[in-house]
C-alpha cells in the first residue's frame, strides 16, 4: 500500500454521462481530464472535475468509504461504488483508456449521475415490511438468537442500500414492477430471523404477488453487482425453498407447480421430460395436468411455436409423448436418493457464508492444473444459502455476538 501511495499523480480522462431532465435537452457525454494518484477513487476524480471545471456536475456522495451506499454508478458499463473503485483499476477496464461513468439503470435520472432512489429502490424496500414483527408476548429478558441464525441474516444486513443490484436486474429491465433483488434480500433478513413471527405471512405475500419471489429470472446479475456480498439471488431462491418446501405455499404464478413438476419428473425418469413439464407447470403436477383449463389455455397461446416445432421435426409427437429416461437400475438409484433425502426430518443445507470452506480448499485450488474447474476453491463462496434449518456444518466461522439486533 505504501508503494502505491508513492506513485505520483497522473492524468485520468473521465467521460461522464450528463443529463438534466428539466432542460429539455437530450443526455450527452462530457469529458474532463484530472490529475490524481492512481490509487485515488473515481469519486475523487469526479469531485475534482466538479471543483475545477464544471460546478454543475451532479453526483451524490457522503462517506467516501463504501459504507453509506450513496455513490452507486456504472463505471465502464459495470455497477460500482465510485468511492470504492480505484482510478488505475477503472482505467484498466476502460475502452481506449477513458473511464466512462453513467448513472445506474432501472431508475429515473434526476440529474447526471444521480438517480431517483425514492421512486424505485425505497418504494420496493417498503413493500416487504422491512421491520421485525416479533412473537407476542415479547419476552421480558433479551431474546437469545442461535449464533448460526444471526450470522445467516447478517449477510443480508450487510446491504448498504446502494441500489447496484436494482440497477443491473434483468427482470426489472423488462418488468419494472418486479419487487427486485434489494427488497427481496431485505425480506430474507426478517424471514430468516427466528424472532420474527410472520414467516408464513411474509412468504405467502411474496409468492402470491406476480412480481414477487417467482419473478426472478436467475441471472446472477445482482450477485455480481453487489459490493457487499449480500447475494440477493441466493436470498430469493432460499425464500422460494422455504415457501414451497416448508410451508407448501401454492401460488397463482406456477412457482410451486413448476418446482414440483420438475422435481417429480426427474424422480420418475432420471431426466427432464420437457414436453410434460410445461403443461404440468400450468395445470398441476400429474399426468392429468395437461387437461386442466390453465394448461389448455397455455397450449393455445403457444400454438404458433408448437406448430412450427412439429413441422420442422424439432419436436416429434413420439418424443413429446414418451419421456427420455435413464436405465431402470439407475432410475431406482435416483429414486432411492430422493427417498433418503426427502425422508429426513429437516432439510440439510450447507451455507458457506456461515461455515466458510475447509482450510485446504484454497491451497488445493492453487495446486490444481491450469483452468481446472474454477469451482474448486473459489474464493467467494457466499452464494449458497440456507434457511435457519439445521446445517450439516461444523462450527460457524462468522462473527456474531449471538444476541443482538444491529
Amino acid at each position, binding site marked *: 500500500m505504501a508503494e502505491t501511495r508513492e506513485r505520483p499523480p497522473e492524468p485520468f480522462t473521465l467521460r461522464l454521462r450528463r443529463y438534466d431532465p428539466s432542460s429539455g435537452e437530450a443526455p450527452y457525454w462530457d469529458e474532463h481530464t484530472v490529475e490524481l494518484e492512481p490509487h485515488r477513487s473515481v469519486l475523487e476524480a469526479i469531485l475534482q472535475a466538479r471543483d475545477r471545471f464544471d460546478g454543475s456536475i451532479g453526483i451524490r456522495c457522503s462517506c467516501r468509504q463504501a459504507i453509506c451506499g450513496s455513490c452507486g454508478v456504472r463505471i465502464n458499463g459495470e455497477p460500482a461504488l465510485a468511492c470504492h473503485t480505484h482510478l488505475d483499476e477503472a482505467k484498466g477496464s476502460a475502452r481506449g483508456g477513458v473511464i466512462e461513468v453513467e448513472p445506474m439503470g432501472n431508475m429515473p435520472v434526476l440529474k447526471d449521475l444521480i438517480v431517483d432512489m425514492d421512486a424505485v429502490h425505497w418504494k420496493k424496500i417498503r413493500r416487504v415490511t422491512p421491520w421485525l414483527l416479533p412473537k407476542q408476548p415479547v419476552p421480558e429478558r433479551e431474546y437469545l438468537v442461535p449464533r448460526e441464525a444471526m450470522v445467516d441474516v447478517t449477510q443480508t444486513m450487510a446491504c448498504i442500500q446502494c441500489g447496484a443490484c436494482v440497477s443491473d436486474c*434483468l427482470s426489472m*429491465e*423488462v*418488468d419494472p414492477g418486479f419487487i427486485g433483488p434489494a427488497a427481496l434480500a431485505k425480506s430474507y433478513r426478517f424471514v430468516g430471523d427466528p424472532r420474527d413471527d410472520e414467516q408464513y405471512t411474509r412468504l405467502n405475500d411474496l409468492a402470491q404477488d406476480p412480481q414477487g419471489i*417467482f*419473478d426472478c*429470472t*436467475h*441471472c*446472477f*446479475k445482482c450477485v*455480481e453487482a453487489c459490493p457487499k456480498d449480500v447475494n440477493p439471488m441466493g436470498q430469493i*431462491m432460499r425464500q422460494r425453498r422455504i415457501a*414451497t418446501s416448508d410451508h407448501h405455499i401454492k401460488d397463482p*404464478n*406456477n*412457482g410451486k407447480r*413448476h*418446482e*414440483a413438476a*420438475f422435481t417429480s419428473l*426427474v424422480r420418475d425418469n432420471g*431426466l*427432464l421430460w420437457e414436453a410434460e413439464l*410445461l403443461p404440468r*407447470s400450468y395445470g398441476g403436477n400429474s399426468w392429468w395436468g395437461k387437461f386442466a383449463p390453465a394448461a389448455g389455455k397455455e397450449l393455445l397461446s*403457444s400454438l*404458433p411455436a408448437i406448430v*412450427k*416445432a412439429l413441422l420442422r421435426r*424439432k419436436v416429434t409427437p413420439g*418424443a413429446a409423448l414418451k419421456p427420455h429416461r*435413464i436405465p431402470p437400475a439407475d432410475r431406482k438409484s*435416483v429414486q432411492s*436418493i430422493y427417498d*433418503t*433425502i426427502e425422508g429426513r426430518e429437516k*432439510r*440439510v*443445507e*450447507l451455507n*458457506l457464508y456461515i*461455515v466458510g470452506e*475447509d482450510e485446504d*480448499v484454497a491451497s488445493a485450488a492453487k495446486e490444481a492444473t*491450469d*483452468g*481446472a*474447474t*474454477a*469451482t*474448486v*476453491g*473459489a474464493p*467467494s*463462496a457466499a*452464494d*449458497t444459502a440456507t434457511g435457519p434449518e439445521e446445517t*450439516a*456444518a461444523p462450527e460457524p466461522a462468522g462473527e456474531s455476538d449471538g444476541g443482538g439486533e444491529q
Partner: protein
Amino acid sequence: MKVAYWPGCVSRGFTPELHGSMAKVAPLLDIELVELDRGSCCGAGVIAEHNQELADTLNARTFALAQQVDGAELMMNICSTCQGAQSECQERLDANAEYRSQVNSTLAGEGLSYERGLTNKNFLWLLVEEIGLERLRAQVKQPLTNLKVGPFYGCYIVRPRNRLGIDEEHPRDHYLEMLIEALGGTVIKYAGMRKCCGFPIITMNKEASLKQAGRHLGDAADADADCLVTPCPLCHLNLDLQQPLAERAVGRELRMPVLHLPQLVGLALGLAPSELGMSRHVVRPSSVIDWSAAVVAAAA
C-alpha cells in the same frame, strides 16, 4: 482426448440437433465422447430450489460416474445451465469434507463416491483451453468468412465469475468472440449478448420472459447479425423455439437464426448445414445455409 461426456436433458429432448451435431464434430477434433448415460438431470437450479442436498447428491452421483470413466481427462458438458448448476453443487461438495462425506454416504448403496476436484468444462471452455484456438484454426476447412455471428452466452456460463473461474488468465466470458474469430467469422457485438434469455421465468411470467428474448434478438438484428450462436440449449429454446411468440411480445419481425455451438464449429470444419441438424430449427437458418451454399459453390 477422452472425456466423460455429459449431454444434459434438453440436448436429448427438445434440441436433438445439439447432441447430434456434437457427435459429428467430436471425431473431427479427436475428442472421444464417453457418454454418461446413467447420470441424472443437473436440476437446472430448480431442484436446488426445492432441496439443496438433493441437487448436490444427484450431481455428486453424476460426478462420481464421470470419475469412473477409465482414461477420461475430464468431464465435458454441452449445456451452460448444466455447467452453472453443477458448478454450484460442486462448490459446496468441494468446500466441506463433512458435507461431502454425508452426500457420499447416500451414494454408498450404489458403490459410488465423489472425490473432490473433478474438472467439468463446457465444450466452449474445452475448445479454447484444451484444444486451443491455434490448433482449431489449423483444422478449419471452411472459414466463416463474411458470416456475421452474434455471441449469446446466457447467464450460467458467465456469472458468478469467481465460481466459474473467470479471470484475466481465463477470460471465459470472451471465449465466444475469440472462437468466432478463430473460425474466420465476424463477431457482432450487441447489448444482450451476456444478458438473460428469459427462459427460467417462461412459466412464471411469460410476457417478461418473451420480452427478454425478443429484445436481445432485436438488438442482434439491428447490429446486422446473420445468426447467433449459444452454448446453452435452454437459451436456444427461448430464442429459437419461442421466437414466433417473442416476435409478438416485442411487436416486430425478428427472423434471427440461433445456432448451437457445435453447429457453428461443425460448419467451419467443413460439415454441411443438413448434417448439423439445422433443418430442425424453428427459425430456419437461411442466412447460414445460403452462406454455406455460396462458399461450397465458389470452391467447386
